[in-house]
């Protein structure tokens, strides 16, 4: 995997690091096309998810040149940029108009750092966000519809607000039949429960901090408490055993018929569209995040942008940029989307072809207009850790009240932000 920097003969191969999952395979296929066109081979090295970041971080620590490009999580930007691991792409992105080809939200979250400065370090590659899958057979069953209307006073349909979603979840929770209302993220390992909760939090009009990076009365505001209580309620309608669940478990409980609705990244919905995997494939529907009490609608962002290693030779950097430029072309993006990659290209996203290609693409395209991400400052990891801990303790562990959990979290966030010099004491 050690690319041979060869100034004279030019660069003949490029190495891209990504996590080990299907989209990486699609990228490899796109890369193969690039080789056909240019003769420069592209290798997508896939690292298991669990260790992906460790691996990249170790490479950073060593200022290594094992990769030319990396498809990295949005939250890595802070570290990648501040410590100089990523090549500055501002010039590259803006001078040729590449920046305009992708949706603003994706450009902002996948590419820009620090927020609002117009400095870009990545090209949005795999757009992703949370959405919902649901069981149409349940939702459209006349008996169920009648019963629901009876109980809740409005018609059973795809929920438009979180309250409705809660009601539906409650309605379908029938342990005796082995059916539960909903599946939500709860995993404590990395960022799962935070991601899941964010969907509610943002929609309740709360952010992780205000403009001054003040957290008090923001993350532990009343609205935040209401959001957290709702999230915990949702968890109580989840099947047993989802106490440490992330995308895989979400799909699992959907596949085995335990859940009426699940939240998940769009990137994992293709599995549900496969009859061999999902017995309910034909009755599976998808919808975008519901709205909060004030009509706010946000979806937690996943997905990644592709960045260039700052430690490789200039020739290689140039070759990498050439590849990205090629990759950003609309035809290539269309192909990328056709393969299953989630493009961020505005035009492709808006095309009829794309919207009809899969049952979930429409929801995806809708979602991509209201995505929102959490911190991408270098301290994101530090912030994430207490967030995960407090959320998990409260939601799964049932410890204390929502207010206490959020207070504790706010307190720790504040400390971290102070230490980082991001907030005055």
């Amino acid at each position, binding site marked *: 995997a050690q690319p041979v920097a060869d100034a004279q003969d030019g660069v003949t191969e490029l190495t891209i690091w990504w996590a080990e999952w299907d989209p990486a395979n699609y990228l490899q296929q796109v890369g193969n096309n690039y080789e056909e066109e240019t003769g420069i081979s592209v290798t997508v090295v896939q690292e298991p998810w669990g260790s992906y970041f460790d691996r990249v971080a170790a490479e950073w620590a060593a200022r290594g040149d094992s990769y030319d490009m990396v498809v990295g999580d949005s939250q890595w930007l802070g570290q990648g940029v501040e410590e100089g691991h990523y090549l500055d792409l501002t010039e590259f992105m803006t001078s040729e108009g590449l920046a305009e080809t992708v949706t603003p939200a994706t450009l902002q979250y996948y590419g820009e750092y620090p927020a609002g400065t117009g400095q870009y370090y990545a090209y949005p590659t795999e757009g992703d966000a949370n959405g919902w899958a649901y069981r149409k057979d349940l939702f459209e069953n006349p008996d169920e519809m009648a019963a629901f209307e009876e109980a809740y006073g409005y018609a059973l349909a795809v929920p438009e607000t979180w309250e409705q979603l809660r009601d539906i979840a409650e309605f379908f929770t029938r342990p005796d039949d082995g059916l539960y209302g909903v599946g939500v993220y709860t995993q404590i390992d990395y960022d799962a429960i935070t991601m899941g909760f964010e969907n509610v939090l943002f929609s309740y009009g709360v952010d992780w901090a205000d403009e001054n990076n003040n957290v008090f009365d923001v993350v532990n505001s009343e609205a935040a408490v209401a959001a957290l209580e709702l999230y915990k309620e949702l968890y109580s309608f989840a*099947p047993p*055993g989802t*106490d440490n669940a992330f995308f895989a478990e979400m799909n699992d409980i959907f596949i085995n018929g335990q859940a009426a609705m699940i939240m998940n990244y769009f990137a994992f919905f293709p599995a549900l569209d496969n009859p061999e995997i999902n017995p309910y494939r034909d009755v599976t529907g998808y919808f975008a995040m519901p709205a909060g009490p004030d009509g706010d609608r946000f979806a937690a962002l996943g997905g990644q942008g592709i960045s260039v290693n700052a430690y490789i030779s200039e020739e290689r950097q140039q070759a990498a940029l050439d590849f990205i430029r090629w990759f950003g072309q609309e035809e290539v993006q269309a192909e990328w989307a056709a393969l299953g990659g989630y493009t961020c290209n505005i035009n492709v996203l808006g095309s009829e072809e794309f919207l009809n290609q899969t049952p979930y693409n429409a929801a995806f395209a809708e979602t991509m207009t209201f995505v929102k991400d959490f911190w991408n400052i270098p301290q*994101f990891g530090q912030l994430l850790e207490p967030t995960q801990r407090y959320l998990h*303790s409260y939601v799964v562990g049932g410890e204390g009240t929502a207010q206490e959990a959020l207070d504790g979290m706010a307190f720790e966030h504040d400390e971290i932000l102070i230490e980082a010099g991001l907030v005055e004491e």
Partner: protein
Amino acid sequence: MSQTTMQGPTRRHLSDRRVIQLFIVPTMLLLILMNIFPLIYSLYLSFTEYSIISTTAPEWVGLQNYRDILSDERFWENFAITGRYALYSVSLQMIVGFGMAMLLKEKFRGSGLLTTLILVPMMVSPVVVGVFWRNIFNPSIGILNPLLGYQNLETSPEWLVEYPLYSIVIVDVWMWSPFVMLLALAGLSAIPDYLYEAAAIDRASSWFQFWRITLPQVMPLLIIAVLFRTIEAFKQFDLVMGLTGGRPGTETVSVRLYREALQGQFETGSSSALAYIVLVIIIAISNLYIRALNRVREA
């Protein structure tokens, strides 16, 4: 060519000193080479504020990291959890492993095969073990609750939520009792028969024989087993992460360490300090064992 003429020995003899050198030097050299840099480097880092992925040079902060850790309640909790976990799982492993060894001590037909089969849990990759046991513990899709006779999902225990630490202990015991068993078995089979013969003549009950002969005789190997299991328990990480993801109540020191050191934080300085605190604790505990070992070895 001479017949077996018995001449004085003229072979080149290595003196015992040379033999010692020859035997020990490779080991020591390798260990020193492989460990000296990581040890010293991380010791140095433990006195600094540093993040491995940052371009800023380590900043010397003296004992600050240590002070922070020792004054952080959560760390004490981590230690307490680790201690409890180590205590439960190591002592259970001892009991189960040694018990199985006692059962297998006397050979019977097929005992060899059974012994090999019992060793299988130990051979499964620890990471996979975590993942799989999570599946097994899962109240919905797992096999454990049905096997224990729970029919109703609502009443069946959610192991990993209700008894997270014990669940880890269960898996650890399942996985590593065979290790203890094999060592104990080797120790048991090295006990010469004549000791039992003498004891039978002396009318010692089997209980008495066990306490006075079996146990003292296998003690050295048992202590080595405990020693290594304890060290591993303090380092245990894969299993905890795999099973509970280190949820509160199961956040052992090494999980904490992992979080500090890698998971998005890269607090290399303070994680090194934490590692050294762990090291000191392990050293202290190991010393107790080794002292015990030397006491039984005096025989």
